[in-house]
């Protein structure tokens, strides 16, 4: 333990309105902390550069799973264990349920929040590819107003996002129109549990009359932040599901992916694995078509 607890102030105003007023009064001064699975690690290592923190843990408005006719809304403070326990998510958003089961261990999942995963903004974030493949929107709130933006516009650079200094991530909204889609998600890491991904790929695809009517592909660790693979989508969408898709997809993903060498893997390995994951997804589609 190299951090010094006495060097940090932490307060828990207890309500969302009180937190928003605080960060509106002193924008950029207070660092929000929810489950602490990221910031407390930095604290232990002596690299938490936040003298003042405000707790979001235990604020009920931030921790909920709610279904409306057209969308499922998840509070930013919903834990990954909450997501895993939701029958609604298991049924309608299986990729998100799967991603939640990959986050660290049970003891991490009981504390780590969906919003924290997104705001932390790791390029390897486990929940991001699934949310991008489901075309999620995020709702951002401040004492002034609230606004919604596509999740694909939330990350704007390495560990930087669209939040202003007085804003919090409030909720994640997922459209309920993926029931007919095919779903794919796979993470490649050093071991099955607790590992941070070297590469992850998520996909949703709507197949009609043997063609890819609609396809969304999203990846972790292929760029500075979790991102959709728009050029690969363009290369695939509208085309008949046939063996030729695999060659087109592989060449598109090798061109679009911009991974780096880091402590967890190499750029070259990530590119190859990403192409293999895409091929696996396309082979699944192909297999489904041949059976039907």
């Amino acid at each position, binding site marked *: *333990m190299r951090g010094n*607890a*006495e060097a*940090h*102030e*932490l*307060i*828990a105003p207890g309500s969302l309105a009180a937190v928003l007023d605080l960060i509106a009064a002193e924008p950029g001064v207070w660092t929000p*902390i929810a*489950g*602490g*699975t990221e910031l*407390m*690690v930095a*604290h*232990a*290592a002596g690299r938490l550069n936040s003298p003042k*923190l405000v*707790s979001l*843990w*235990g604020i009920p408005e931030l921790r909920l799973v709610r279904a409306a006719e057209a969308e499922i809304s998840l509070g930013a403070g919903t834990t990954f*264990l909450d997501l895993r326990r939701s029958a609604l998510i298991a049924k309608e958003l299986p990729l998100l349920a799967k991603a939640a089961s990959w986050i*660290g*261990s*049970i*003891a*991490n999942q*009981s*504390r780590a929040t969906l919003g924290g995963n997104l705001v932390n903004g790791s390029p390897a974030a486990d929940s991001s590819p699934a949310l991008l493949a489901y075309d999620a929107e995020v709702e951002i709130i401040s004492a002034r107003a609230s606004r919604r933006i596509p999740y694909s516009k939330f990350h704007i650079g390495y560990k930087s996002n669209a939040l202003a200094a007085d804003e919090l991530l409030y909720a994640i909204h997922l459209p309920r129109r993926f029931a007919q889609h095919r779903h794919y998600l796979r993470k490649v890491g050093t071991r*099955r*549990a*607790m590992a941070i991904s070297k590469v992850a790929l998520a996909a949703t695809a709507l197949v009609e009359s043997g063609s890819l009517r609609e396809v969304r592909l999203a990846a972790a660790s292929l760029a500075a932040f979790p991102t959709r693979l728009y050029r690969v989508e363009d290369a695939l969408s509208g085309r008949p599901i046939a063996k030729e898709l695999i060659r087109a997809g592989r060449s598109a993903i090798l061109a679009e992916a911009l991974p780096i060498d880091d402590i967890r893997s190499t750029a070259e390995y990530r590119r190859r694995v990403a192409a293999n994951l895409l091929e696996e997804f396309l082979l699944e589609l192909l297999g489904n078509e041949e059976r039907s």
Partner: protein
Amino acid sequence: MSARWPTIQLTVNGRPCSVEAPPMKRLLDVLREDLRLTGTKEGCGEGECGSCSVRMDGELVNSCLIPVLQAEGATIQTVEGLAPNLESGGALHPLQEAFLQCGGAQCGICTPGMLMAAAQLIENHPHPTMAEIREGLAGNLCRCTGFMRIFESVLAAATQASDRNLEQAPHAR
């Protein structure tokens, strides 16, 4: 000096406690230093190894990652709470007995965390499969046993408990 810190109330192993501590002090350090409950160990200090696992409001958590202010009002169970009457001649928890019988503990540093993760697992899955045991303990690292004896211990405890009905055990939550 201590008046500069807030007073935090929490219930630990069934006992109401009150500590004055910097709000960012880790729950782990409050347990070990302020409450002298040194059964909970520190391994990595970054949520990777599970040595500091305790149960908080019925969920498994890494106490090294919890600022004590976020434990205000919480109910905590540590390894000392698994066999609360041990010093007055009470029995070990069935999990502790099984770890002894099956060789589930060697150096002992990971053992309290393993026991807490196993207790959480058995509460959620009274008849766990080996896959569920592996997942439930995936966040707890052991450098001695090679894990198999730990998994066998948990399986044995769950089997024995179901044989004689875990609900009747005095320490079952």
